């Protein structure tokens, strides 16, 4: 009876992890009950092989080197997009004229997958770290900008009027009402921006690069080292899941009053 109680209490956790474990075991066991044809075997790997490759790469320091390069591009690009996106979003939210002037570019760029600018950015910034930072920046800046903008737009007008009537300047208004009110939106924007930034790092390093996790994946794929490909993919997966879920946690704490919408990443 106790076991049953335990199960009903933790059902979602048990089923969730159970399913993932089941899939991993299934994957691992494929070679046992099915001999792959020669051509397919080249592309096939098992979780244990991937773990072994991870261990190997970790020990010879290769992973650390690639990780470091990718992390720099990610942090620099994301930092730059925060520095640019936040103020611009705030200003666009407060000034209707500026909003009207910039809106065409923001809307068009936001709808376009920014990854398409990659060849141009490589042409401009070379194949070094700068083109990666640039692609991360153009990917991450728009979600931040737009979410900040929406946050400012959704500020309660009554609060604004109250603060105004008591003689606050635009700067004070920003500090007391607008900014605190937009924080949940900004955090939501940050979560989207993290996803775009990681996408930028991955794809940016696929092309014209000699370092970084993306490069590791691309070169391993060309050499049919499928286990190494999955090591890279798993690292990116783990990072994105951890980062986005952490921000999501923050988001739900800050804005528990906002209505539930579908998950977006």
């Amino acid at each position, binding site marked *: 009876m106790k076991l049953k109680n335990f199960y009903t209490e933790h*059902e*979602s956790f048990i*089923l*969730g992890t*159970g*399913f*993932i474990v089941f899939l991993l075991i299934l994957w691992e066991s494929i070679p046992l009950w099915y001999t792959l044809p020669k051509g397919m075997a080249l*592309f096939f790997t098992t979780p244990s092989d991937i773990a072994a490759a991870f261990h190997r790469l970790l020990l010879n320091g290769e992973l650390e080197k690639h990780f470091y390069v990718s992390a720099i591009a990610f942090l620099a690009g994301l930092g730059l997009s925060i520095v640019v996106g936040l103020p611009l979003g705030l200003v666009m939210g407060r000034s209707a004229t500026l*909003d*009207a*002037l910039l*809106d*065409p570019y923001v*809307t*068009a*760029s*936001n*709808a*376009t*997958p920014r*990854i*398409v600018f990659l*060849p*141009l950015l490589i*042409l401009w910034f070379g194949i070094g770290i700068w083109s990666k930072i640039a692609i991360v920046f153009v990917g991450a800046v728009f*979600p931040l900008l*737009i979410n900040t903008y*929406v946050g400012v*737009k959704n500020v309660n007008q009554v609060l604004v009027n109250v603060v105004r009537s008591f003689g606050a300047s635009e700067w004070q208004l920003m500090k007391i009402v607008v900014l605190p009110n937009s924080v949940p939106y900004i955090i*939501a924007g940050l979560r*989207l921006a993290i*996803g775009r930034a*990681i*996408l930028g790092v*991955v*794809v940016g390093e*696929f*092309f014209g690069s000699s370092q970084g996790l*993306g490069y590791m*994946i*691309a070169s*391993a*794929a*060309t050499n*049919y080292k*499928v286990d190494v*490909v999955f090591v890279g*993919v798993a690292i*990116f*997966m783990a990072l*994105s*899941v951890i980062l*986005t*879920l952490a921000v999501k946690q923050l988001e739900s704490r800050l804005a528990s009053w906002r209505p*539930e*919408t*579908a*998950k*977006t*990443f």
Partner: protein
Amino acid sequence: MAAREYFTEHRRLWLGLCSFFFLVAAWELVLTYIVPVNPFFFTKPSLIADAFKEQIQSAKLWHDLAVSSQAFLWGFSFAVIVGIPVGLVMGWRRRVEYSLDPFLTALYASPLVALAPLFIIVFGVGVLGKAALVFLLAVFPFVFNAFAGVKSTDSLLINVIRSFGGREKDLYLKVILPSTMPYIIAGARLAIGRGLVGIIVGEFYAASEGIGFAILQAGDTYRLPDMFVGIIILSLIAVGLTELMRKLELMVAPWRASDEAR
């Protein structure tokens, strides 16, 4: 006075247009009269316009677009066919939700585009590899939006159908699907963006035709005007499709003028 009223009413539109034309004019004039344009590094609107005219008349552009859209449509259709049922079942059956949610959320949150090199190598540089990539990226918005749609279905409506003796089929067709529709269309909007990323990355990585390949090749051979034409065409398509979805969303669910993430 009417003109003035007209202007204040459409102020936003006019300012936007002005800023666009001003930018284009400034770009052209600066590069013509002040700094001579370095053709290996930058280009100017008049050259882009020439390249645009030339490309529109050439068969290659249309061929590239056809190749890319074929892969996109295959991947996207499969994403619809697979994603929506999975999402509906996940929303309706609690145990399925518990089992699938952590796994699919992890996949949704991670940059699956990292698998692109592997996909291209396994499935080849043709339609199949790109379509598989598009499917992989586009399926999750459908799953999670259909899921959220079912979850948000008014349980009162479900109870009404039940009390009047409606069958499971009626429940799905008369309540769940209609109330999920706006969510699914919102998902389609997200899926379009992700699917386009799949096409572009797939074609950047390895392809011999397609719009992404055309952009990459123009860049590699320093034909900047042609590259800009490709980028502009792709943005037009992306903006067009997203706007279409937004219109559709308003049509299906006018009460849900969503302002989250344009």
